[in-house]
């Protein structure tokens, strides 16, 4: 009996000890992964730099660029390594995964690629670290254009991200389809009506072709808000999402309903893709990599970077793209004001607060956003430079036949009201356009849905009507 008890105790103790050892081991291995070896105060760069960015569809431009830069970086700092951690997800899912990873020091990358529209939201959430101290001792910062500098600046006046390029939006059209339809190949619409008329002509004369693509719905994410809805809204004289004077979000405006009515016009006349096509998460890639090269889409309201897909380094090389496609600026509703409208966005490199190797990450960011780095990236990814020395560089101007057209549009560009709430408000815009193109709501009802949503997000007192 006594022996029995003893033996049982012994087994229990052994088991307990085993469990305790196991737990301790867990704790130890967990903590040892954290600071892989951060840069010491002497400024030595070592350890692993974890780099997170979005990787979706066939485009490997950024991954290839980062791989090349990583090799240069490790050559310059033999103690350091770069670990690329692409998040393979559509736009909205990318942000979610990035935010989740930044919540904990164990999963946070050392540097991440942040869209300028979301960075304010993530700054407010305390995910990112201010770069001001680092920037002050970085001579290159003076090369950045002022508008670009403010892109990643928070309301507290601090800078949280280094931009690597910007972009604008305009119309792309297929000259061959236009020729078939008897339309001019140097087309430049002066009002929304001109675009609708051209699309109607194409529908009649060139069957089997989607006449017009305007992004809509939650599937394509921010593209629906910016390339789509906002390009329309800001083309109306009173159209804006945010009233700067009163610092309030605009709801229940006529301009808002007008912009949604334009969507209704396109889809009720079957001038656009089917709603099912337009709502697929891969739609933006389908447009750029399949429909345009296969001559199945006549007019596309899209970004200036589109041709990056067709370069030899792109996802769908298409050497003769420039002979086939023409560009036109997006007109305002009835040609009001300067007659043209465009919106700018762009991405930045930022360092999360939970980064374990911030010093090395900053070194890598400096390399990526140096003149050589941005020149290479802006050419390959067809970005509009944010550094004056890159913009002036002859190799940039020569690199792409559309660079001049788009660079000229920058003067009249509009930036999104990228405040902390913008990310949520953008989602409402996507949902409102989705309701209209699927005919589940009239433009008026969708506008009301948006207004209710905005009030819920920012509060009744922070909304206004114009």
């Amino acid at each position, binding site marked *: 009996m006594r022996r029995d008890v003893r033996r049982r105790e*012994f087994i229990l103790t052994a088991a307990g000890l085993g469990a*305790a050892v196991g737990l301790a081991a867990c704790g130890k291995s967990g903590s040892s992964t954290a600071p892989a070896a951060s840069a010491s105060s002497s400024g030595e760069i070592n350890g692993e730099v974890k780099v997170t960015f979005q990787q979706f569809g066939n485009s490997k431009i950024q991954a290839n660029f980062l791989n090349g830069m990583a090799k240069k970086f490790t050559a310059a700092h033999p103690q350091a390594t770069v670990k690329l951690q692409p998040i393979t997800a559509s736009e909205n899912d990318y942000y979610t995964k990035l935010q989740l990873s930044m919540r904990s020091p164990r999963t946070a990358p050392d540097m991440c690629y942040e869209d300028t529209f979301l960075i304010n939201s993530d700054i407010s*959430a305390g995910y990112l670290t201010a770069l001001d101290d680092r920037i002050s001792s970085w001579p290159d910062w003076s090369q950045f254009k002022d508008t670009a500098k403010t892109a990643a600046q928070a309301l507290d006046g601090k800078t949280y991200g280094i931009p690597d390029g910007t972009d604008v939006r305009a119309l792309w059209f297929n000259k061959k389809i236009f020729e078939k339809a008897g339309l001019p190949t140097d087309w430049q619409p002066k009002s929304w009506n001109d675009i609708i008329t051209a699309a109607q002509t194409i529908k009649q004369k060139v069957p089997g072709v989607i006449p017009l693509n305007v992004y809509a*719905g939650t599937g394509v994410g921010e593209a629906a808000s910016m390339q789509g809805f906002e390009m329309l809204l800001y083309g109306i004289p009173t159209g804006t999402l945010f009233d700067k004077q009163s610092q309030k979000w605009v709801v229940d405006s006529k301009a808002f309903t007008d912009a949604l009515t334009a969507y209704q016009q396109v889809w009720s006349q079957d001038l656009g893709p089917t709603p099912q096509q337009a709502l697929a998460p891969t739609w933006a890639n389908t447009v750029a990599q399949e429909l345009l090269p296969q001559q199945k889409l006549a007019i596309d309201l899209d970004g200036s970077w589109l041709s990056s897909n067709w370069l030899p380094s792109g996802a769908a090389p298409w050497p003769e793209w420039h002979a086939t496609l023409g560009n036109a600026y997006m007109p305002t509703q009835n040609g009001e004001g300067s007659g043209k409208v465009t919106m700018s966005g762009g991405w930045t490199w930022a360092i999360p607060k939970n980064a374990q190797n911030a010093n090395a990450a900053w070194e890598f960011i400096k390399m990526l956003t140096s003149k050589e780095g941005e020149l290479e990236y802006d050419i390959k990814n067809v970005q509009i430079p944010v550094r004056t020395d890159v913009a002036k560089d002859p190799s940039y101007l020569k690199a792409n036949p559309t660079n001049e057209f788009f660079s000229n549009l920058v003067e009249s560009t509009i930036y999104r009201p990228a405040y*902390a709430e913008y990310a949520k408000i953008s989602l409402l815009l996507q*949902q409102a356009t*989705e309701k209209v193109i*699927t005919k589940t709501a009239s433009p008026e009802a969708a506008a009301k849905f948006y207004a209710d949503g905005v009030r819920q997000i920012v509060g009744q007192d922070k909304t206004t009507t114009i």
Partner: protein
Amino acid sequence: MAATWAEVRPTAPPGGRTRRTLLRGLPIVPSVVLLVVFLAGPILYCIYAAFTNMALTGQVGTQFIGFANFTRAFSDPAFINSVWLTVVFTLVSAIIGQNVVGMALALLMRSGYAVARALTSAFVIGAWVLPEVVAAYLWQAVLGPDGSWNTVTGLFHLPPQNWLFTTPIIAVSIANIWRGTAFSMLVYSAALSEVPRDLEEAALVDGAGRLRLLTSITIPLVRRTIATNLMLITLQTLSVFGLIYTMTKGGPSEKSMTLPLFAYNQAFVSADLGYGTAIALLLLVIGGIFSVIYLRILSKSEPVR
């Protein structure tokens, strides 16, 4: 931890009963720890989050906001829409679809040949064994605009249907019936095999028709199994996520946005973790209500002796 055990070890308990029972409880400590950490922990955290304004982005820290998330839900048309869709989905695909088809298959198989029985169960269980995502893609391919459904109906010159787009909730219900019927079929087959044949034969001799036999003899005898099965498949169907997410993502325009997808969207797409967990909690309550109803039916169906 190890230190306390070391104290116990040198001398055996001098008849101390409490100490002995504590010692006996020791083996379950690891499993209790695991349950607390991985089951109770997340549930408690979820309840806590539902009463806060926790967000994925846009703000630092979280504040306790009482019942605001719940009052918001009940004044949110999107939430009400989701509740309706969830009820429709559960009714159509579980309570009617899986349940009735499962019972029908079980009855047919009971009176079928052994070969037919083996073949049928192989096919039906095959659908059940298939991973959710695969089943979802399969049905997407069948019901899509260029899918096999339209190819077949096209042979009869019927107009093509775009199920996933016009009536997505029906499309996902069909997929869920197809996938989940095997479970009901297996449960009912087992129950029916317990029904005494002589009772049924006696009824037949007394002049009962096939239908009468079914409604008066067979079904009353397996009614407890029916209630249990209904409870299980209802709870399973209420929480279906992967199937719908893969097929429609809750769209278009929220026309197939059942509560699990709505909660996911609020938490991870709108970045509103607090509201999302509140919805998840409400889903739990709905599941609870269904369980209580079934349990009451179950206790009422207890034969009076």
